[in-house]
């Protein structure tokens, strides 16, 4: 498969991002932890209780997803909404560019045809005269 230089660079960018996310997992960098790859916010809560064992959160979330599954669904929803809007943006612009290119091509073709017709007319007119 041949790719343009542009597509190659974009693919490379995505591959590096993927590698940065996968390498810590593949190298087992969380193995030394009781709970590998937990959230940094949860760890910060642990550090707070370590520094100030008496601290009690004085407010609780108004709504809390009832399970880890529902929570991950809502996170996926957030990513999906964002990805949808981004895809819409780039789709609209791609469509616009294609439409412009087509309109330009049609215009040039028309102009060419008109020119040819004119040339044919001037070429034909002396003999008809």
């Amino acid at each position: 498969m041949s790719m343009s230089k542009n597509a190659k660079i974009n693919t490379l960018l995505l591959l590096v991002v993927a590698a940065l996310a996968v390498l810590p997992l593949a190298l087992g960098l969380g193995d030394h932890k009781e709970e590998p790859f937990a959230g940094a916010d949860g760890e910060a809560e642990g550090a707070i209780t370590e520094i100030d064992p008496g601290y009690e959160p004085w407010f609780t979330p108004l709504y809390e997803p009832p399970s880890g599954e529902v929570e991950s669904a809502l996170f996926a929803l957030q990513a999906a909404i964002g990805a949808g809007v981004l895809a819409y943006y780039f789709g609209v612009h791609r469509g616009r560019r294609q439409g412009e290119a087509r309109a330009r091509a049609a215009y040039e073709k028309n102009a060419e045809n008109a020119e040819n017709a004119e040339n044919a007319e001037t070429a034909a007119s002396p003999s008809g005269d």
Partner: protein
Amino acid sequence: MHIAEGFLPPVHAVAWSAAAAPFVIHGVRALTREVKSNPESTLLLGASGAFTFVLSALKIPSVTGSCSHPTGTGLGAILFRPPIMAVLGTITLLFQALLLAHGGLTTLGANVFSMAIVGPWAGYGVYRLLRRFDVPLMGAVFGGAFVADLSTYCVTSVQLALAFTDPSSGFLGALGKFGSIFAVTQIPLAISEGLLTVLVMRLLVRSSKGELTRLGVLLTRKQSQAAQAAKGAQAAEGTEVESR
């Protein structure tokens, strides 16, 4: 990763909210002005907000053996300047606080201050600085997005260290603790965010050249200086004509 609900003492919660509020109000004004004067930019504004939505939903494993997520605020700050990003970032944080129990309402002010104010300003500052030194666009975009991401979590660490000073090692000890949890974890994620922001900017350069030119993103330092000079000359001419 934001500060969880109820995890900042009331005084700190109120203080950070008070500090963040003016930036958000100013941002709302800037956003309305932008939409009114350039209605065609609405779509790109939406895309900038959407980028933050996607990136702050992705919890990614890091070298420290824990997970965190990028912020996605660098892109919007570079395109539309930081005040507008203060609004878009706040919307994202509100969504997560209300629906995902991630972050919180009492810690919203502190989280807005780190992710929607300091991050965008720091990232934008670095981007402008790099452009001034004639760093190519994509290099400056990477630097801006990287700093926007990392500085957010440095601020989070400072906020927590201020609220929970370590009884034995004091503020700096606590800062070391929270910094090792948030900031160190964030370094590879900030690199990822920089690369993803470059990717989106590359797509934008191809698809939306006109828009980027209007926003001044595609101008080199010399071109923007020339544009400024032309504007200045025009203004001077205008006043001359008026004074006649």
